[in-house]
């Protein structure tokens, strides 16, 4: 095994693309090292991306925010501007693991680990976040929901690295929220989860919405019918009922030790409804 610490993304991509055996990207290591210890992965090459300029930075641009692939989730929570614009994304990222894990784990790692129960992913999908992918043939920007394709699998080609996550500039009266169900109060994996992102007009009518459900299908679900249930309405009881119903209906969950199919469907609807109410209040809706 070799450990390298490239100083440029081009070098990292070149090393990853040229690797003969299994290679792994290391940022926070909170998934990679656990998988190595368990014998689930045996990389011949570990590419530590933390010394690449810019990858440890959150930058605010004319288009919104760019969050480097090596920014620990704890740092998201310490960025006041990001927290104000995207509180749902930040609260989701802050739910990953303990304080010890927060100091290391990243949202790009959470995305690329491709767990259906990843906490930050439903919030990023609801936020309409984009991933900046750098590979041997150049750079492309894709919607985050197109990255995980199945548990543990991504759409990234050989040699491709996500260098940053982009969050858009906020329209007035916009906000988001993320909620998950776990059987204890802290430090657990979502049994089911929901992220909701809303924009309102001056009268409090929803003009744009995105709804995502986690841990209820092989990948995080973008529930378009959920958004349709909210757009053009205030958050009245009928709209919330419709939202809960379509979210429950969109789920394709499994039965496992953490929850049954029936429970996950029901709770997906409940969480979507509550997350919508929180996002609505944060956006200034009454």
């Amino acid at each position, binding site marked *: 095994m070799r*450990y390298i610490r490239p100083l440029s993304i081009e070098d990292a991509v070149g090393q990853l693309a040229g690797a003969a055996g299994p290679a792994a990207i290391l940022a926070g290591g909170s998934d990679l*090292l656990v998988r190595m210890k368990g014998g689930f992965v045996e990389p011949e090459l570990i590419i530590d991306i933390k010394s690449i300029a810019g990858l440890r930075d959150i930058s605010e641009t004319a288009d919104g925010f760019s969050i480097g692939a090596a920014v620990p989730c704890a740092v998201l929570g310490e960025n006041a501007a990001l927290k104000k614009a995207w509180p749902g994304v930040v609260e989701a990222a802050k739910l990953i693991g303990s304080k*010890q894990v927060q*100091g290391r784990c990243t949202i790009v790692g959470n995305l690329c680990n491709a767990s259906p129960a990843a906490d930050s992913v439903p919030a990023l999908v609801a936020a309409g976040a984009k991933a900046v992918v750098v590979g041997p043939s150049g750079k492309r920007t894709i919607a985050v929901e197109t990255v995980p394709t199945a548990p543990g699998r991504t759409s990234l080609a050989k040699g491709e690295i996500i260098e940053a996550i982009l969050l858009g500039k906020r329209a007035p009266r916009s906000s988001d929220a993320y909620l998950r169900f776990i059987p204890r109060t802290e430090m657990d994996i979502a049994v089911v989860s929901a992220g909701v992102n809303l924009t309102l007009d001056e009268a409090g009518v929803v003009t744009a919405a995105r709804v995502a459900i986690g841990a209820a299908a092989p990948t995080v679900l973008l529930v378009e019918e959920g958004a349709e249930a909210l757009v053009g309405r205030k958050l009245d009881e009928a709209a919330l009922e419709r939202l809960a119903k379509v979210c429950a209906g969109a789920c394709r969950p499994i039965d496992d030790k953490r929850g049954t199919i029936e429970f996950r469907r029901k709770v997906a609807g409940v969480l979507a409804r509550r997350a919508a109410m929180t996002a609505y209040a944060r956006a200034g809706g009454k």
Partner: protein
Amino acid sequence: MAGVAVSTTINGDSVEYLCQPDETLLDVLRDRLGLTGAKEGCGTGDCGACSVILDDRLVCSCLVLGAEAEGRRIETVEGMAHGDKLHPLQQKFLEHAALQCGICTPGFLIAAKDLLAKNPDPTEEEIRFGLAGNLCRCTGYDKIVRAVQDAAHVMKGA
């Protein structure tokens, strides 16, 4: 496997070591440097017994590679006391009997040090949340929380 040469700072001292590329910082501390304060509980980042402070961030040293420590600053439990004078947290853990078997204690001490450095006057709830990444199967946590509260009180007066 080729060794990785690492220069780092541990408890204020410059340290150099050679480690394997897949060797964790925890294994380097314990097996190469003789710093056996950090303990391996789970080895998967769940229990916090291996907690150290890496560039002002609390981390599980079992989830950090030894090779990653190059050019960085590490604080372990061994750096808390000054000679024979215990750190107030260590003193209060003793006074409050905030330990029984002691395996989790170094992790709790370093996590509590990090907590008080960032929040010198935490509420009980903030202490409980702040130490949620450290597991103790003996004390039921209450004595640990009391010890941290008392240490915070002493440190504010210092």
